């Protein structure tokens, strides 16, 4: 058409490239600094490609700062928590989508309502409930005397299992599956649980994958709850370890070491994202916009 059309195309590309650089620059810088020896952290002018390159910071973070242990803790937490989450939430979502029972709408409203509760508003009582959990961690029947589920794996995982967001997502998904399969199975004498587990669940693979990925990342990246609930340094997750590591900056940890630790803490979620990209767009589309 007109010359301005090719000009506008160039402009569009320019804007997109600039924004992309802006988005990825911090990651590149993080890796770059993590590979710098301590004398070069504040070199002027700052360089993106370190010379010399050193992996010493990663060794420091992994061994001396115990990030190898934090990595293991976080993996266990994220994987176990995700398995539990998809189990409970898929079951919950299925019930609300496909089973008929009195009070169904009210109960679903309750779940939707709690979705709107900000986490920080329940953080403190959640902590207290976990601490005063009856018959756990030295507590008596009234939850007094000990530390309850504080610093325990159960205390870390249990609060995050039921999530209104994921139950909602599963419910939306299951609603779209045909009822005929269920009715046929019922007539054949199949138990409700078998219908769920052997017929509906295999059909829910996209939703399962989406929730699994989101849940895994949520748990891997979580800071506040692990920070509050874990008191034993050996039980820390990566983000908590990272937070403590920064605190040690005044006494020892330097920027290059902190950057190496940061890279360690974010590598898995970035990898999961790069390998499973399509689930992110479908997952987001499945939720708010359709309703």
């Amino acid at each position: 058409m007109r010359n301005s059309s090719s000009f506008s195309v160039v402009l569009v590309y320019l804007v997109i490239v600039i924004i992309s650089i802006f988005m990825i620059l911090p990651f590149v810088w993080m890796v770059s600094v993590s590979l710098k020896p301590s004398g070069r952290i504040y070199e002027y002018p700052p360089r993106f490609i370190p010379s010399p390159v050193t992996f010493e910071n990663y060794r420091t973070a992994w061994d001396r700062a115990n990030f190898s242990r934090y990595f293991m803790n976080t993996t266990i937490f994220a994987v176990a928590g995700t398995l539990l989450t998809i189990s409970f939430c898929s079951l919950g979502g299925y019930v609300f989508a496909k089973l008929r029972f009195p009070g169904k709408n009210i109960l679903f409203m309750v779940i939707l309502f709690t979705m709107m509760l900000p986490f920080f508003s329940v953080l403190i009582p959640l902590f207290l409930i976990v601490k005063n959990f009856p018959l756990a961690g030295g507590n008596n029947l009234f939850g007094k005397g000990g530390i309850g589920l504080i610093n325990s794996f159960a205390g870390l995982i249990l609060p995050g299992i039921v999530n209104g967001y994921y139950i909602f997502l599963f419910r939306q998904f299951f609603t779209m599956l045909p009822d005929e399969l269920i009715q046929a199975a019922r007539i054949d004498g199949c138990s409700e649980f078998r219908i769920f587990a052997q017929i509906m669940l295999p059909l829910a693979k996209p939703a399962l994958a989406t929730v699994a990925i989101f849940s895994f990342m949520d748990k891997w990246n979580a800071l506040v709850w692990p920070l509050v609930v874990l008191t034993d340094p050996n039980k820390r997750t990566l983000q908590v370890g990272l937070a403590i590591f920064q605190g040690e900056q005044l006494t020892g940890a330097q920027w290059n070491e902190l950057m190496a630790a940061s890279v360690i803490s974010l590598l898995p979620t970035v990898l999961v994202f790069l390998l499973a990209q399509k689930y992110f767009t479908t997952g987001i589309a499945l939720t708010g916009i359709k309703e």
Partner: protein
Amino acid sequence: MKSKLLRSEMRAAFLFLIPVFVLYIIFVVSPAITTVYLSFTQFSGFDKPTWIGFENYHRVIGDPQTQKTLFNTLYFTAGTVFLSIISSLLLAVLLNQPLKGRALYRTIIYLPVVAPMLAVAFVWKFMFDPSPSGLINYLASMFGIEAKQWLSDTRLAMPCVILVSVWKVLGYNMVIFLAGLQGIPSQIYEAAEIDGAGFFQKFFNITIPLLKPVTTFVFITSTINAFQAFEQIYGMTSGGPANSTYTLAYLIYVKGFRSLKFGEASALAVILVLVVLMFSMFYIKDVAKEK
């Protein structure tokens, strides 16, 4: 026969929901109720809570630190949401065009979303290092802008935190807007082009009005998220300098887990819930109106 099936269906629903609701009641509903209760008490985590009525609210609302925090939170939320919507909408429009490498740019732009906030907060903190070799200062010097204190400057710290927060969610909101844009049938644009509409006319008379539901959704979810910003403040500024980046979620954490003033923190938590609920209600009313 039919009612027998229905009864077994109801029984299954009941059984399946028990584990979900047990967890829900323990870890979601009771903390919510306890927050309200605690807000009327004085409690340091030891002994028992003492009932003091509305004193926490009086104390908290009259306290200059809280007032500054509430102001900061509004400042932060307004800045983040406003910049977020404009930039992600613009990016979505740009990326909606058939461009080469579109998927790659979308991936890069989405990358910050999946990274843990604390880790990226650390790299941004180093990028904002006040020394001349801080990356931001170095880049600024290439444009003739002198080195700044950034996170140590009471007027610049909050804008920096806002920038990081917008950077973090840009990709997420962009994907949502993209989905919304793709829901607009191209025939509408074609008809407008036949009538001679140019880019800006199409954008303002077609795109923006038809995107209203999506924009509302992004507005509400961004606002609710902004009220809960924590990791970036924890990692970058610890609320400073001079309380200029203290926001509500961070204050709740500090009051609760550092000062051990669980009662006051709960009062703040209740205020947080009310604000968030208010926004959620606006959204629900808006969505209900559309139907």
